[in-house]
């Protein structure tokens, strides 16, 4: 990895997005609007305080997954990726550059979503808001890195959009939002233990209810981090300088 080329790549991705203000607005506002809608739906019940933290994990994760996978797929399809790989750009420069650029957007998006949930929707957070933000950011970066990986296995935009239900929905269903994970059938419980979104939701709920110490949340963050690193490494393996 070469820092100059990695940062140039991240800067280039951010300039591309800067030329598309509508995407920026959607990226920053949509998760908050959905969280607001949920708070409104459950306004006379205590449900929002239980599912609210999970939503902070969910929406940025899904949005970043979609945005990243489509952007990188576009790069593969327009020939710019082949051009870059015929130039002295390392595969890691490319992948980490993308992760940095979208990671920065993820920080902004999560900040807006957490701020809106806590101060506008009145989500009660008994633990540290900063820790909540840290988990939310890790989760959005996870969406970015999985999106990068998914784009390697799609040839068209249609396919990459199908990866969303295929890779994301099972994690949502098994993540403990619909049914607490300890009440799942044993086999599903075991599977859900391996899915990164389960750990993100556990961590957010732990911070919200202040039921666990910071060490527990740190452990969950480590698991999410391992998934991010794994997806980035796998993603760079799928970049091929030579194609048939």
């Amino acid at each position, binding site marked *: 990895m070469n820092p100059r080329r990695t940062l140039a790549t991240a800067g280039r991705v951010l300039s*591309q997005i800067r030329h598309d203000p509508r995407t920026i607005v959607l990226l920053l506002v949509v998760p908050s609007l959905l969280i607001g809608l949920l708070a409104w739906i459950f306004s006379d019940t205590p449900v929002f305080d239980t599912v609210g933290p999970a939503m902070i994990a969910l929406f940025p994760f899904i949005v970043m997954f979609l945005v990243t996978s489509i952007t990188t797929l576009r790069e593969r399809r327009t020939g710019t990726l082949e051009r870059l790989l015929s130039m*002295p750009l390392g595969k890691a420069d490319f992948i980490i550059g993308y992760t940095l650029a979208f990671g920065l957007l993820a920080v902004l998006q999560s900040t807006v979503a957490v701020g809106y949930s806590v101060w506008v929707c009145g989500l009660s957070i008994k633990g540290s808001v900063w820790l909540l933000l840290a988990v939310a950011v890790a989760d959005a970066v996870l969406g970015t890195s999985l999106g990068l990986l998914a784009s390697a296995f799609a040839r068209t935009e249609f396919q990459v959009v199908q990866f969303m239900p295929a890779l994301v929905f099972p994690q949502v269903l098994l993540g403990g939002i619909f049914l607490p994970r300890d009440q799942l059938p044993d086999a599903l419980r075991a599977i859900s233990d391996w899915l990164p979104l389960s750990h993100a939701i556990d961590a957010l709920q732990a911070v919200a209810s202040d039921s666990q110490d910071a060490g527990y949340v740190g452990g969950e963050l480590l698991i999410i981090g391992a998934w991010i690193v794994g997806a980035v490494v796998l993603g760079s393996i799928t970049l091929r300088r030579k194609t048939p």
Partner: protein
Amino acid sequence: MTTMVHKSAPAAVVRDLHARRGKHPVLHGLSLSVPRGLVVGLIGPSGCGKTTLMRSIVGVQIVQSGEVTVLGRAAGTASLRGRVGYVTQDASVYDDLTVRQNLAYFAAVLGASRDDIDRVIDATDLAANTGQLVGSLSGGQRSRVSLAGALLGSPELLLLDEPTVGLDPVLRAELWALFHRLAATGTSLLVSSHVMDEASRCDRLLLMRHGEVLADDTPAGLLSSTGTHDVEAAFLALIASRPSSDPAAREARDS
């Protein structure tokens, strides 16, 4: 044009190259060499394997067998990546960046200077468009941005896949003048075209059909050896004298 004999080794040497594009065999034992410091035209109809050959020289094509040596090293070697410039047929540039932002990014990847960006903008006549989004440019302007990106860092070998398609005649003449200026400073160029009348602008010609080289000569040498007056007629004369270049005949011969 000139038939300079260079003492240095050729810029690229291809020996017995077999390659498929996707699932289709395209190159069947192709051999050729690209001399240094000249504008070499790679002329042939669409689908004859020009792009696959260029991709093989750049080192982005998976080849079945054969040897491709570029600037003394195996094609695709990491140290060649800054020394070989490649312009694909469809402009590979970012539509959602301005001309200058595109070039600034490619320059950062190549380690080229800011002055170099201004040099290639002037060379490709894009000075009036530097602040425009590439997506808003015409097709010809977009392909010039792609070309400008390949000129960054002054690569020793330039591979240009149909760089003049869709350009107006004045601009086309300017680009050919640019190619010759680059060659005069020692750059080796391989320029593909399916337009036969561009052949006369080259120092040397490689005529290709069905993945094989029909002729490797100067334009004048080609015309005199075939007894014709233009490259199109020479092409037809060569095909007539080589019935085995037909794919059906070749399969019969190979089996």
